[in-house]
């Protein structure tokens, strides 16, 4: 096909792009859900993702609980942390300018990252794959674990999207987003719904962290470096839309992977270039239904 570019390299980078895209999609979806209901840009999303990975690592290395156990336990622990954080930090400032929500979650990020780094150092900790081996497709080697991550995160994205856009529970959420007073008057406890929504979004971040642990190294900064890309993804997709966040996440992961093949120097720039272009050409966001914020 292309001169000098082997099919192995192309497919390999496509797979990496798809994997990265899965994480972009899951994290920006969580960010979009939280923003949709609370108008909080959850800067701590990256730190909560990192917490998920760390809890998985700790479960394995101190209690001997394996990956499959961690896949259930870690998101619950991170979600519980989210409930505490929402009650103590976000609820008291809910009535203020939404900038304070971003700044408060940024402060929490500094604390979490600092504490983890203080305790475990800043170098990455290894977490071995729970499904070793893979299959040789002839043109490339596909590790089982990576296939699992792509399929599982895709199912999570679709499931969450369905839950919010097509169920009664989701319709409450969307209604509370539009007009909390009226939803409240129907006897629905909106503050509790906000807390649980935040916990759900944060739990998703924790779950992504567990999924990421065997792929990337478990390190204190794994979240914040990802967060920068997630912000760009959400800006490109438009803040309000869940499907927009998912699609943009996958799309940008793949584009980034392809850039690594064809123009490696620009690989870590391409997402930002797309963001700037998107802002110039389509200021309201690619998938936005309405102007966000």
């Amino acid at each position, binding site marked *: 096909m292309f001169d000098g570019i082997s099919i192995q390299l192309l497919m390999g980078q496509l797979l990496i792009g798809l994997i990265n895209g899965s994480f972009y999609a899951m994290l920006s979806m969580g960010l979009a859900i939280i923003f949709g209901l609370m108008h909080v840009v959850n800067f701590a999303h990256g730190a909560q993702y990192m917490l998920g990975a760390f809890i998985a690592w700790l479960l394995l290395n101190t209690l001997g609980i394996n990956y499959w156990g961690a896949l259930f336990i870690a998101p619950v622990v991170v979600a519980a942390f989210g409930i505490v954080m929402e009650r103590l930090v976000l609820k008291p400032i809910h009535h203020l300018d939404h900038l304070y929500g*971003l700044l408060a979650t940024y402060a929490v990020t500094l604390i979490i990252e600092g504490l983890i780094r203080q305790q475990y150092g800043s170098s990455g900790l290894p977490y071995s794959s729970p499904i070793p081996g893979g299959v040789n497709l002839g043109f490339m080697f596909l590790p089982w674990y990576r296939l699992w991550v792509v399929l599982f995160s895709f199912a999570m994205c679709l499931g969450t999207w369905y839950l919010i856009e097509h169920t009664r529970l989701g319709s409450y959420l969307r209604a509370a987003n539009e007009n909390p007073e009226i939803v409240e008057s129907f006897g629905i406890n909106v503050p509790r719904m906000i807390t649980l929504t935040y916990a759900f979004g944060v739990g998703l971040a924790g779950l992504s962290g567990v999924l990421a642990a065997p792929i990337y190294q478990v390190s204190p900064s794994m979240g914040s470096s990802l967060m920068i890309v997630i*912000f760009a993804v959400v800006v490109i997709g438009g803040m309000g839309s869940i499907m927009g966040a998912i699609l943009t996440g996958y799309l940008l992961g793949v584009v980034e992977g392809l850039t690594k093949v064809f123009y490696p120097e620009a690989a870590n720039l391409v997402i930002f270039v797309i963001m700037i272009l998107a802002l110039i050409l389509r200021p309201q966001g690619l998938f936005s239904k309405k102007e966000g*914020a």
Partner: protein
Amino acid sequence: MSRYLGLAAILVLALIAPFFVYSVTLMTILVFVIFASSFNLLLGYAGLLSFGQAMFFGTAAYITGHILKTTGVTLEIALLGGMLVGAVMGFLVGLVAVRRSGIQFAMITFAIAQFVYFLLLQSEFTGGEDGMQRIPRTEIFGLIDLSDNFSFYYFVLAVTVLAVAFFYRVVHSPFGEVLKAIRDNEPRVESLGFKPDRYKLVAMTLSAGMAGLAGGLKATVFQFATLTDVSWHVSGEVIFMTLLGGLGTLTGPMVGAGIVIGLNDHLAQFGEWALISQGVILLAVILFFRRGVVGELGALVRRYKAGGRK
């Protein structure tokens, strides 16, 4: 009146400070006074949260350093060069970022700052991961030798005083009044026939230019420029300083810069605890003292005065 007394007291303190405190620490504070004031101009007066202010600061540090290393120009020209590049960047970033209102402005500036970080990392002239070393400190106006830190301190102080006077002028000009009105009620300002986006763009350009000046000064104070200057940690630090000192006040960023640099100096030996305590203090400020040190003190004084009049 009391505000002028406060400023005069700060100035007298600044003049005698190098006899008691290490002058490089003091210069760092002054650099961050300008830098934090530039951030304050955007958030405190225009309601724009720039989460990427370090891109102007860090880029200007490299540009000023590069000019000094490769040409024989005097110091003030190199500083102006850094300032100009900062302002142009601010204008360009503003063109893109003011298209989205509110919180998205923060996310966009945050992401563009990272873009700039990667660009500088890959650029030849910045020295990549190693940074730019041995930046010469040429004579100012070709006349005055400032190679020792003690005399250079007074130069940096003079620049800082000019910069603060500039911020004062901007904030108290008709332009500044429109900015504040946009911050408080943008649709209303628009309905009066103003174009908010243009005002935001000018504010962005001015702020970035001043952040650039701070970056250039930083490069000449330390005689090196590194990627740290462009990182989001520095963008975050300047937010911390401004909120701690007092958002939307002229003296707030000064007090904030003083406290944070002092704090960093003392906590440097405790490793991560410096960042952790920053997070804890910032959270406390957001939850309990949103007016910051200067604002809370001012409120105390007003309450005291009101009590006295009764």
